[in-house]
């Protein structure tokens, strides 16, 4: 049994079921990120954990105690909202201690807790100001202070960084991660930003259409996505998906497709499973991450199976740290991530290296990954 248990939690509004039997166990000290496109049910699930939305069926338990029907304030949780939800009529200090005051904590203790948190978040000089006088980043800190001061069992974050500008977002992201490492608290964090999910989490639940598509560590989610949705949603630029035919070779099997000129390209698999072998003769979808599709000099030296092919360059996009090179495989546009100084020109031929160790294969009909 986990620290926070979500067992078959379902949510429906009348006839419409928006969340279907979600099952997640969160261990103490874990940083779970719920990620997915808007409308996938991630915020609804968070609100159900918070007690702001009722659970239609199933159970949510914290520390082994069921929370169904328990008032939000009695769940020992704290929440940071997307808009920060700071009380505009109260000072920063009052904002932070409001929860303690509502729980009848005596004033000296409240003051002490407030000062500790203010010191931790470096907002001591802001305590007398009103939220309207603060910048976005400062408001964000105060909102976190209000959550921290309660010393809750579980922290809930609802897209806390989406209102910040790009640079501040990255800074605050690091700060949240530091805070988690320092305090070791259990966190459930909702975001639609897959980079935030990858960088912050110890585990990710990718959600879509009210279902948890995959639950796993960032590495598992990234390297072995369960299905096409997870494969395309996680990673930027997203995974290249090429329809290929599985063919039998003398040794093992290969994926067969065509390059920009219609010439056949054969990509042998590193260590195909028996299940994949049973697909010989059928068409499947081959998934290659852009960083596994590069120039020969930039290919991973530890990889066991690099296949080099010649192909036409359609567009190059120098991004400073890398150069993204667009080409086609099997009639689909593919994004290759090459070294920054690579010399390729649009319209000309170039040599590409594909790291087949990292290749994943999906069934065309079920869209599920073939292990």
């Amino acid at each position, binding site marked *: 049994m986990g620290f926070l248990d979500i067992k078959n939690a379902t949510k429906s509004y009348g006839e419409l079921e928006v969340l279907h039997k979600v099952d997640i166990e969160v261990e103490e000290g874990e940083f779970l990120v719920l990620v997915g496109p808007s409308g996938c049910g991630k915020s609804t699930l968070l609100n159900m954990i*918070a*007690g*702001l939305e009722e659970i239609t069926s199933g159970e949510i338990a914290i520390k082994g105690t069921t929370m169904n029907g328990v*008032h*939000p*304030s*009695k769940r020992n*949780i*704290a*929440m940071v*909202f*997307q*808009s920060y*939800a700071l*009380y*505009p*009529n109260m000072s920063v200090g009052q904002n932070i201690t*409001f*929860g303690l005051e*509502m*729980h009848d904590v005596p004033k000296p203790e409240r003051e002490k807790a407030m000062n500790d948190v203010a010191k931790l978040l470096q907002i001591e000089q802001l305590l007398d100001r009103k939220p309207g006088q603060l910048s976005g980043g400062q408001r964000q800190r105060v909102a976190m202070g*209000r959550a921290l001061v309660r010393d809750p069992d579980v922290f809930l974050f609802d897209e806390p960084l989406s209102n910040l500008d790009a640079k501040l977002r990255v800074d605050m992201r690091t700060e949240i991660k530091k805070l988690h490492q320092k305090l070791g608290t259990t966190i459930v964090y909702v975001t639609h930003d897959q980079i935030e999910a990858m960088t912050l989490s110890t585990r990710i639940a990718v959600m879509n259409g009210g279902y948890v598509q995959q639950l796993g560590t960032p590495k598992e989610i990234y390297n072995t996505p369960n299905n096409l949705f997870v494969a395309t949603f996680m990673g930027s630029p997203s995974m290249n998906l090429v329809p290929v035919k599985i063919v039998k070779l003398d040794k093992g099997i290969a994926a067969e497709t065509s390059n920009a000129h219609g010439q056949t390209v054969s990509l042998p698999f590193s260590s195909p499973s028996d299940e994949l072998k049973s697909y010989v003769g059928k068409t499947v979808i081959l998934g290659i991450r852009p960083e596994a599709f590069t120039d020969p000099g930039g290919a991973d030296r530890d990889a066991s199976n690099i296949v080099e092919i010649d192909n036409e360059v359609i567009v190059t996009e120098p991004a400073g740290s890398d150069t993204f090179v667009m080409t086609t495989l099997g009639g689909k546009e593919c994004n290759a991530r090459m070294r920054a100084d690579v010399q390729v020109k649009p319209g000309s031929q170039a040599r590409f290296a594909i790291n087949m160790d990292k290749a994943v294969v999906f069934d065309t009909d079920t869209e599920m990954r073939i292990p």
Partner: protein
Amino acid sequence: MAIASSDTAIRTGRVTRFFLYLVLILFALFYLLPFGVMLVNSVKPLAEITGGNMLSLPDVWTLEPWFKAWSSAQIGVEATGLSPYFWNSIKMVVPAVAISTILGALNGYVLTKWRFKYDTLIFGMMLFACFIPFQIVLIPMARILGLTGLAGSTPGLVLVHVVFGLGFTTLYFKNYYQVFPTELIRAAQIDGAGFFRIFQRILLPSSGPIIVVSVIWQFTNIWNDFLFGASFADLDSQPMTVALNNLVQSSHGVKEYNVHFAGAVFAALPTLLVYIVAGRYFVRGLMAGSVKG
């Protein structure tokens, strides 16, 4: 200065501006004229009014009509002046405004932040209350006041005005709270504040402009009401408006126009004061929520 003119949406030349102000000033004078006539005639001896021009300034300035209207004029059968009725009105208006505003705020809070089944239907019915003509409810209201034993008393009038004003105050507060961020309510819930604490600590402190709107609207309407006062009050609870009518309509003796004018100024003074003190918040409050700030 170029900067000063750039904050108006339409650029105006000097000539158009002149005509604009001219028209505005003429209209302002036109609207102020009745009040001016009242004031001027309330400080004249009666002989000057009956014998001369109503619009001319007094030859002899006197405050005698004011004192008479306040404390010794004949109202109906008794020569008490308007003062007891003025206090009747105050005793009716203050609780009625306070109660209808507080209830309206609570209604708005519930209808926007504690939604329940059929809440829009209930709100629709409350809205309907804004459009019902006063005359329709006279007889049912008389019956209810009779049954509750509140007929002919100030609490009875307070009840009538609270019930009648509730539709408006609810509408005001509902519209205002509609754009109040629900996340704040949720945050307060997680912090452990209950229904009334959220209302008192989070919502009310942010409701200044709309409270002003509600208070001005209710104060003006209730103070100026004649129909309910004439229908449901007895001698001890008659409001100012009814007393003013009785003063002016007195059938015996000479018609003391200067006293009548002074009485009318007394009757208009409180609403005037409320507008002057809180008027600028009124417009601000009415606009609040309509434009995202």
